[in-house]
């Protein structure tokens, strides 16, 4: 009963068919699952191998949006010319996921669905207003990434659904971006902060501001209150210090690791200050 089994369907519809009948854990690049399996922390025993499903591969775009197949690897992202130009923070994130051999296997949907608060692609994707396409035999639905995480490792996804694609609106202007990852992976659970922000200025005013931080709360956060405070403002010393206070207020650091709570807030506010002062 408890023995490990893996189904390998030929195509997406076959995969969804199997998933509609039994609860199976999708196995993509395996960079999270195989580590958990090796170290005995994986509860799942029954898997569905999706690594070869062509319907989940490839990056396409229209004038309005990008569509990244669920199996898009970080290596594919970092090599993609138009992504480099249009979604540079996502490309920066991709380059920082592990090293080359990891980037060749680690998929974007796997990074999202592993639901680590430290997933490096997520703050960038949140700033770019990404949505997920979730597909089952019954239906296809689109969930904004900002609504996808319901709590620590809790997601708005049913057991018969796969993430089939990530949809990202095509940025219209050429915003100023800021993407910083602080802290090494090995020490990740104690010291990492991942900060992503994007700003569009018009005659000295901030007309668009988006800020997202990973590793600071049970899920990566978009900081809407701080964004709202800054919108339509011209920056000066007092606006910057108010914004920093607002940000410190809005982030709720993971407080089961108390010793590092202050550190994380400090790193986040320092990064935020650097960013604002660079504008």
């Amino acid at each position, binding site marked *: 009963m408890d023995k490990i089994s893996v189904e390998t369907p030929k195509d997406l519809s076959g995969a969804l068919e199997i998933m509609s009948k039994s609860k199976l854990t999708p*196995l993509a690049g395996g960079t999270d699952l195989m580590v958990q399996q090796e170290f005995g922390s994986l509860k799942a025993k029954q898997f569905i191998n999706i690594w070869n499903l062509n319907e989940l591969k490839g990056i396409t775009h229209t004038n309005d949006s990008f569509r990244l197949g669920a199996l898009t690897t970080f290596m594919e992202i970092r090599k993609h010319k138009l992504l480099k130009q249009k979604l540079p923070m996502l490309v920066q994130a991709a380059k920082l996921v592990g090293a080359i051999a990891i980037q060749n296997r680690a998929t974007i949907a796997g990074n999202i669905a592993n639901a680590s608060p430290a997933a490096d692609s997520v703050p960038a994707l949140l700033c770019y207003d990404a949505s997920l396409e979730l597909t089952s035999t019954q239906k296809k639905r689109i969930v904004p990434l900002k609504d996808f995480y319901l709590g620590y490792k809790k997601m708005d996804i049913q057991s018969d659904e796969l993430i089939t694609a990530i949809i990202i609106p095509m940025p219209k202007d050429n915003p100023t971006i800021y993407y910083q990852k602080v802290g090494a992976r090995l020490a990740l659970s104690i010291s990492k902060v991942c900060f992503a922000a994007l700003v569009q200025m018009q005659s000295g005013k901030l007309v668009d501001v988006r800020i997202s931080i990973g590793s600071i709360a049970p899920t990566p956060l978009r900081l809407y209150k701080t964004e709202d405070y800054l919108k339509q403002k011209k920056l000066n010393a007092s606006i910057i210090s108010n914004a920093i206070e607002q940000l410190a207020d809005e982030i709720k650091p993971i407080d089961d690791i108390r010793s590092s709570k202050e550190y994380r807030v400090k790193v986040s506010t320092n990064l935020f200050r650097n960013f604002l002062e660079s504008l």
Partner: protein
Amino acid sequence: MSKSQTVNITCTINEAQYSFELPPLTRLIDVLREDLQLTGTKEGCSEGECGACTVLINGELTNSCLVPIVQMDGASITTIEGLSQKGILNKIQQSFWERGGAQCGFCTPGMLMSTTSLINNLSTDEIPSEEYIREWLSGNLCRCTGYSKIIESVSLACEVNNG
């Protein structure tokens, strides 16, 4: 009680074809080292951090400790044993030999696989910067050399490749 599942997998390893019947999550590294006695591929951390187990799968640099055999049906795998031809070191191995890029040797197979992939990914006549080399090898840890001899070896390998 049901029998535990096994899967039938056929793949190419160093240009020879093999078929296996194994539990689906058997790690590629275990197949290489235990079933095939290809012990040039090393196991350090077992979690994708050290690069000692690096191989090429369909030409792409991969940590064999993280790959389940169920995903290898039809794949073409190159291990360190596939680099030399008839016992003669290839140009990359020769460069490591000349520049002292190996000390204890534990990380060396992985370093050589990463260098192979680095060179395969260069465009014609491209000379990679040191920064580029360091990034490409950043998934390979070495406790002996302090890396500079390794970087020199890789640089030499790139030059030889171009010349």
